[in-house]
Every structure is written in C-alpha cells, then in structure tokens.
C-alpha cells in the first residue's frame, strides 16, 4: 500500500474527520511515535480532552486494507485520531522501532483467527451452494409483485385518463399514499416512481409557472414506469410458469426495486477478475424522492476501456453511519469486481482492492481507451438512451481533435471533423455546471487527449450533447468537476 494524501482522504468517513485529523497532526497532538521492525504497525499517543491520551495504531499487515485502532469513544471509523496518525506517517515523522504492544498483538491474533474462519466459511459455501429460499415463499412474493404491478398500472391508467395536468389540482399526499401502497407489493422501484410524481406535484404547486416542465418530467416517469410494468409482468409470469425463483441477470430485477447482494451477483456470474480501475470523475447528487445522497464515481477499466460507475447511497436518515465516498486519484487493483446486470455503464462494487499511484505509462494509455471517434460514441449512446429502462444519458470517453467555441457554444471536434456541442445537463443542477470551466483550463489541450463526460439528448433542440466531466490527457486527468 502506498500512503498518499488521496488514500488518507479515501479512508476518512467524511471530509470533516480528515480535516480534524490533519489539524491534530499539525498542532503536534501526537507523542510516543513507534513502529514495529517490519514497518507493518505504527502507533502513537494522541492528546485528547481527557487527562489520558488516546492510544492510536494503524496496522498494515493486512495489505491494502489497513486496520485502525484507537482507544477514543468515537463512533466514526476511522476516527480523527487514526486519520491524524496517517498524516503523521505521511509527514514522515520519526517513528522509533519498538516491540509490538501486547494488546495489539492479541488483537492481531484474534483478527487472524476471524479471517481464517471467514475463509473457511467461504470455502464451505463455495463447495455447497446456499439452500434456496422456500419455493412457496418465493412464489408468494412473485404473486404479490404481479398484483402490485396491476395496482401500479391502474394508477397510471387513472392518471392518464384524467390527464397529467390534473396533478396541479391534486394533493401531493394522494400520490405519496399511492406510493406507500406499492410498498406492500415488494415494488420499491414503482414506489419511487410515484414518489417522484408526488414531488413534481409539489413543484407545480410551489411554482405554477414551471407546470409545463413538471408535466414533461411526470410523463417521462410514467413512460418508464409503464415500460417497467409491462416488461416486469412478462418476466415475473415467465418465472412463475417456469418455477424459477432465483435472481436473474436482468436489469428488471433492480428496476422493480430488487437489491443485489454480492453473493447473488457472484452466483449469476456478474463479476470480472483482476481489474485495474482508474476513476475519471466523481460527483454527488441528492435524490429527493429517495431522500438520499448518491455519490457516484465513474471508473474506466484499463484492460477493456469499459466505463462503469460506483454508487454510494447515503440515505439522509443514516448519513452518519455510512462512510462518505470521495474522489480517487490513485489506481485500484481489484481482484473481483462485481458488475450489476444491465446495458452500457453498469454499477460496480468490490470487497477488496489495493491502491497505488497510476504510472506515467498507464496515464499515457488512458486517452487511447476512448471511443474511436465521435460518430461511434454517439451511436453507442443513442443505442442506450432509447431503452426506456435506462437513464437518458451515458458516460463516454471521446477523442479530442480540437476544443473550441463556435459563437457562444463550446464544441468538441474529433480528428475526423465530427463535432458535438458541450453543454451542462440541466437536470443535474447548477452545482454540476462544468462546461464554462473549459475556458479556464490552465494549458492548451495536448494532442492525443480525450474528454470524458455524459452524453445526452437535449429535449430543448433535439441535439445530442456532451456534458464534460474530465479532460484526460496523456500526462494527467484534469477534473472539471470533482
């Protein structure tokens, strides 16, 4: 493991904890710096508000997954004291070599035993696959879901018969109530769709001048919901008929509100091995309907050039218990990369990974992973966005011939002379605005660079545009956002 500031920030549960840790290091709160002879354990005392200092240690014996220990009562993990100790290590403070303290040696031993047991369990599980859940229960659930789809269809039908415009006169609570009802049918996807409709009702009531825009949004939600209902019904019926109740490698599972577990993904073969990932961009948005923050990282697979996304979901109610994600500038070596079913850019997850700095050669090779030209990228994106179940944008890395302006518009031109307008996607909000930052790029774009962004269809004028996120040059990745 290579210790970098970026790595420390990635370990912090939130930016404030990292900043507090840095402050502790800066003001000299640490004393008694020690490390073991092998350099796998670092420990020190950190002055706190109490009379006795906290005993902090960082155990690197686990490779890429360090174990932080601290005697403080904080529920954040790692706490600011452990993060502070990371900063002490980064600052190359003088750590005297000493024997590993008894308590830590014991904890290490216990941890090794736990890991051993876990490995045994895994091995056992691999040999004998888990017992499937009761077929009767599964059948009951599918029946219930089918009933729910009928219910959702009735709701859509009623809304369209009366007209979407009647939403203006309805109460948002009506739709919230409908959404709640769908919760009884294991259809959280449809439930969220109705919550989004309730939100558009609130928006109309708040600002009647925005009604047209809200109707269009609601209609998009209804189209997607209708499509989900239709395809899900066929899918569920087929499963019922075939008496096949296990999770399937289909995007519908998630669209209906299913939640993938890593073992399920493993079971359906949705994983890749030994993948090298580099993050191209990172952003955070708030999903009001689900009342959660979505921390999204866009990653490129150095082996295949495939671009996927990580999504860290932090519901407002549980924010402090879920570690916040942050931008990553290092390269991740992932032994098993789980990929959610779907087309185009899929959600990815992993359990373990090792991080290291990206080498100049790897960086130089990044732009070459772009689409061959703009036309190919546009074709690929069109193919994705026409699918009603997929988002109306797709991440792409496109080669840059030239970046410039035509009148007021920012334009990317590829080597073949194909052009695309660069625009901010309005739906993402002002905090995602990045196009204008192209005018502030510190230096001219070097030859052989590529632009990463989200390609989308702009309803306003029927143009396919690109919302630029990062400029990938052979020497560095310049993030226009985060």
């Amino acid at each position, binding site marked *: 493991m290579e210790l970098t500031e970026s790595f420390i920030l990635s370990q*912090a549960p939130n*930016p404030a904890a990292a900043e507090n840790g840095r402050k502790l290091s800066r003001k000299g709160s640490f004393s008694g710096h020690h490390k073991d002879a092998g350099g796998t354990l670092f420990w020190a005392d950190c002055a706190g*508000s*109490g*009379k006795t200092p906290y005993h902090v240690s960082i155990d690197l014996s686990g490779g890429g997954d360090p174990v932080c220990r601290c005697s403080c009562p904080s529920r954040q993990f790692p706490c600011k004291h452990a993060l502070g100790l990371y900063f002490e290590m980064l600052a190359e403070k003088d750590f005297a070599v000493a024997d590993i303290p008894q308590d830590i040696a014991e904890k290490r031993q216990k941890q090794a035993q736990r890991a051993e047991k876990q490995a045994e369990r895994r091995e056992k599980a691999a040999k004998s696959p888990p017992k499937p859940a009761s077929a009767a229960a599964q059948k009951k659930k599918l029946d219930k879901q089918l009933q729910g789809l009928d219910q959702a*269809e009735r709701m*859509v*039908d009623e809304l*369209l*018969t*009366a*007209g*979407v*415009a*009647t939403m203006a006169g309805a109460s948002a609570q009506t739709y919230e109530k409908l959404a709640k009802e769908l919760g009884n049918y294991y259809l959280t996807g449809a439930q969220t769709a109705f919550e989004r409709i309730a939100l558009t009702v609130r928006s109309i009531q708040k600002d009647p001048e925005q009604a047209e825009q809200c*109707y269009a949004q609601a*209609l998009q939600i*209804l*189209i997607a919901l*209708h*499509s989900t209902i239709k395809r899900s019904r066929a899918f569920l019926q087929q499963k019922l008929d075939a008496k096949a109740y296990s999770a399937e490698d289909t995007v519908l599972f998630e669209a209906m509100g299913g939640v993938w577990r890593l073992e399920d993904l493993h079971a359906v073969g949705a994983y890749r091995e030994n993948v090298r990932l580099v993050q191209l961009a*990172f952003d*955070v948005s708030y999903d009001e309907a689900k009342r959660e923050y979505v*921390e999204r990282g866009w990653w490129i697979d150095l082996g295949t050039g495939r671009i996927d996304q990580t999504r860290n979901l932090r519901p407002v109610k549980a924010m402090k218990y879920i570690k916040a994600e*942050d*931008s*990553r500038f290092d390269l991740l070596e992932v032994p098993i990369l789980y990929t959610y079913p779907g087309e185009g850019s899929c959600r990815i997850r992993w359990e373990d990974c090792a991080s290291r700095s990206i080498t100049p050669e790897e960086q130089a090779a990044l732009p070459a992973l772009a689409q061959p030209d703009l036309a190919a990228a*546009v074709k690929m994106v*069109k193919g994705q966005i*026409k699918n*009603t179940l997929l988002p*109306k944008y797709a991440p792409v890395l496109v080669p840059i011939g*030239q*970046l*410039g*302006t*035509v*009148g007021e518009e920012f*334009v990317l*031109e590829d080597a073949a002379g*194909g*052009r*695309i*307008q660069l625009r901010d996607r309005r739906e993402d909000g002002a*905090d995602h605005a990045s196009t204008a*930052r*192209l*005018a*502030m*790029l*510190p*230096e*001219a774009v070097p030859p052989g660079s590529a632009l990463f962004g989200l390609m989308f*269809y702009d309803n306003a004028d*029927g*143009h*396919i545009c690109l919302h630029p996120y990062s400029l990938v040059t052979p020497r*560095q990745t*310049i993030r226009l956002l*985060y």
Partner: protein
Amino acid sequence: MPNLQPLYDIKERLEHAAIAGTNLLSEDFRLTRAAEALTPLAKASPVFAKIDAGVRTLLAAPPEGRSTALLDTLSLVDAVAYTQGVTGCPGDLMPLPPGSGVMRPLSYGQLHPLLEALTGTGGGRASLVQSRWEADPEQFRDFRILPAVIAGLGDSYGGLADLNARILTAMGPAILPRLQEGFDPAGKKDMVRRVEVIAKAGGSSAEPWLRQILPQAKKDVREAAIDALRPYLSTQELLEMAVTEKGKCREAVLRGLAQQEGEAVKTFWREEAQRRTGTHEFLRDASSSIASDLVAEQLRRLFETGFAEGWPGPTGFLQSVADWLHAAEGKTSPAMIDFWRWIDSRYDDVPSTLNKTGRFTDLKTAVPTTLLDSLLRAGPGPVAEVCWELYQKRPDEPRYLPFGFLAALLQKPAAEVYTLFAPYLLLEDSTPLHRRQSDALLGVISHVRWSKEKGRQCVSASFPVAEPMDPRWFDRLAQVLLHGPVSRESQYTALVTGEVVEVHDSAVLCMADPTDPAVRISMTSLIHSRMTQLPLGHYSRYGTPWMTYSSYLLQFGGSLRGVLAESMTLCTKPIYVYYIWKFFDDYRDLLTPAETADVLEELGQGIQAKHILVDQDDIAEKAIPYTIAELRAGRAYPEWSVWWDMRP
C-alpha cells in the same frame, strides 16, 4: 435526410394528449392531422410505420385501453426521436485560449465544502474560507475555485466579500486578466471591489486599464476607479475632473487634490473652502504642505472673525472652528506652527461657550487638546518643537504640561525629562494648582507605552522616546499612585472576569519596562499593595481585581506565593472555579509547576477555611488537590474537562 417534422409534431400531440387526458382523445383533431402527416414517412421506413400503426391503434382504442396505447406509442416515438438526435455545430471553430488558473488535485471532500462556502448562504462560511486560506492559499488559484472567489466579491455578507478581495489581492498581478474579464463598469459593489483588488494587486501596472474603464464607469465603480487612479492623475487632470465630476466621484477627486502641491491647487482649495462647507474633511488626512497651510489659513481667519465679531457667531460657526481644528491634527507646515504660536498669544480671548443650538463647544479646551493630538500624530519635528517652546513659556500652566512632557520625551535626555517633570507629581496634598499639574501629567502617561520590539517606550505606539525613561520615574509613580493625592478613575478590564482596575495603574504598568530590575521592584510593590487591599471608594464593592493584577505581577517577574490567596480573600463575590483553572492554564508558560502547586495549595487551604469563596467549591475541593499531586509528580497541568468531570 428525411424531413422529421411530422415525427416531432406527433410527439408533441401525444404528449399533449397525455397532459390533457385520454378522455379527450376523440376530440383531438390536431392529433388526427399529425397522424395523417406521418403517413409518407411510414411508407418510407418500417420504424415510422410502426409509429403510424401505434397512433392508429390509439385513436381506435376503447377508453379503457387508451392509456396503455398512448404510453406504448410515446415510448416508441421518444426512442426514435433519441436516435434522430443531431450532433454537429456549423461555423468557424475558435480554439480555446489557455486560461489563467491552475489545476490542483483536490478531491470532492476538499473542493465541495469550500465551493459551498464561497457560493452558498448562511453562517460559518467566512471562517471556513479563512481557515482554508491560512492552511493552503495556493488552492484558491485552482481553476474551479478561482471563479467562485471572484464571484464572491459580491457576496451578500460583506465580511466574506472583503476576505475574497484579500485573497485575490494576495495573488498579485497574475490575477488581473481574470478580474478584467467580464468586468461591468456600470456594476455594483462586486465591481467596486474588483477595481480595488485590481488597483492593489496590479500596482502601477493596473493604471492603463483603470484609465481605459474610467469613461464608461458609473456611480460607485467610477468613484472607486478615481480613488484607484489618484496616485497616477496629474494635478491638471484632477483640477479638470473637479469641475466635471459630481457627488461621490468629485469627492474622490478632492481626496486626490488634497495630496497635491502647487499654487493652482492652493487657489482651488481656497475657493473651495469659501464656496462649500465640508472642505476640512478632505484636508484632514492630507499630508501636503498646501493642505497644512490652508488649514492654518482657515483657522486663523475663523478665529480672527470670532475675536472681531464676537462669539459664538452665526449658526454653525463654532462647529466650523472645531472641524477645522480637527483638520489641523498632524499638520506641520511653518504656517501651521505659526498658527499655534499666534493662538497661544490670543489664548485668553478664546471662548469657552455655548453655540446657538445649545451644544457646548469649549474652544478653550479644544485648542490645547488639538495641539496634543497633533503631536501624537506628527511625532518629533516642528510640532514637538512648538510644544516644547510653548511649555517653556509657561511651565506652571497645567494645560501645557501634557504636550510639554511628551515633546520632552521625544527630544530630551531621559534624566533631564525626569528632573524637569517628576516634581509635578505630588506625593502629598498641596495647592489646587499643583494638584491640577499632577493630574495633568498623570493623564498623559497613557499615551506612552513600553515597546518590547523597540526596547524603549513609544509615544502614541509609533514614535520611540529619545532615551528609555529614567527608572526613577517608576518608583515615584508607584509612590504617587499608592500615597499621593490622585484623582481616582477606574475602568473595566478586557478580561472575562470584568474586573475593575485603576486607570492610572494600567497606564503606568503598560509604560514600565518589565525587564529592568529596578522597575520590577517598584512595580511589584505597587501590584502587591493593590492585590492585598480593597479598592477605594465605591469600587470596593467589585472586590479585588486578582486576575488582572496577578497577570501584571507575573509579567514583572513577581511571585504569586502568599499574595494570590490573600487577594482572593478580598473578593466580594464567589469566584468561578473555571476562572481559577483558566488563570493557571493561561500562564502556564510564566509559572513553574512548583509555584503553581504551592499557590494552589494556599488557595485550597483558603477555600477549605471558607476564607475564599468559590462558586463550585465541590469541584475545587477535589480538583485542586488532584492538580497539586499531578504537578508534583511531574505531569502536565490538567485540561478543564478533567476539573469539570470532578463535579459530584
């Protein structure tokens, strides 16, 4: 490429049908017409044929099947519309010129809170920006942050806008192109700040740009531009602008003219003073000899009018005299010095009177006070010389003593100053004149303070005295303050305890050199006395200001042993236990652990015997012995939380 308008028309009509409701579908003749227009496309392409079929199914569907048919068709139309989305942008492509920002590898966790603080609303933003600036000023050059800092010049919270201005100014001339980009000469406060930042960051290199924007600049921006251009505008330009500019812009021009020299400028100001009131405001801060001469001229004219026509004169006359006197502070031209001599010769005729509005304008007091203030602003030089000259003429007159004493400190050897002025300080009661002299001298010592950096006392914090003050002063001052007939005056200290201390004590202790052994003895004797006696008069109800005098005692190398506990017994109100902890925490650098332990032991005994009143003696009774034990065991003075956790 086929004409796709029918596709977009049908999309629009279908969306309209969804919004209006499928109930009304049969009455929608526009949808029918749009479906007809689609027919030629349907013949040309299978996908359009599919849409055409979908529309027909929809139009023929029974009411209960319309919603499904509508959404099916809309899904298809949308998908086709996406596939028909156009790219490209005809026209000449202008390459992007390199920007002026830099790229720092800042993560979301580092960038987002800062951007939110710079662009958001609510409290706590300025402190976050300030701390980030102090920790890493370079990150503000990042091309993602810089625009937010520039936009933040117009932040609704003025404190943050000013901080942004300081951040940008510190970036130097390199920031100029970014600030000049998108500049609005008719803008508001944000543009005013831009002008100020450009002028400060760019220095003389900003002059051409400032001259360039001046013709278009309006209102506040214009005023700021003129202010910024002042050092570069010629006298002739300023004189011309004084005719053409109006309001605040003219005032900016006048501020520029106040710094200019020359006969034309003098004539201008003379006319200006005759035509308008308020001219004194522009000349008040001006350092030119012309400004000084003009103020002297005006003062002499006003006083002569007063002497000739009688006081208080017409409405506003006395106020005008007071204003021009105020403008005379720090002025040093020969004409000004002559004025002080002249007014001294006519001092008996200077009135102490009421003006017509009933407001008291005591010119008899204002004249010597202004001369003293003038000396405090000008320091050594002609004003000090005239002060010394006037004092020498009437050395017994109390009004000359303050500026005579300060002028002597600035110009004369220390021993001579002591010999001349120390006798004015009374050790025992005497005649009213002598008491007035003593009070006058004590009243001026607050303007003299010890400066550690300069190694001697300074007048008005700026001008070092000719020689460090004679140490004998401090013994005499201590005796005078303890036993002399001093007019008592007290003030609240800035400490959290809100203690009341003698004004003269504070002045003398701030004037004394804490490194001089002789001075230390005199001052510690004064402090000991103050700590072990109740204040006189009605101030006794506030009790002994133990914390203030203890801190002085430590500064002068004294020991708190045997003193602090006694001082606390004289406190009239219970002492907060937190103040006790805080005092020893604040002075842990000046107190040895052994002394702290000894003093705490004395306090502990006093608290136990109820001689010292403490608001939370239950904490004190546990925390003090614990702290003594910790200190004697060689461990650190504990944190407050340790004391606090000892409450029952």
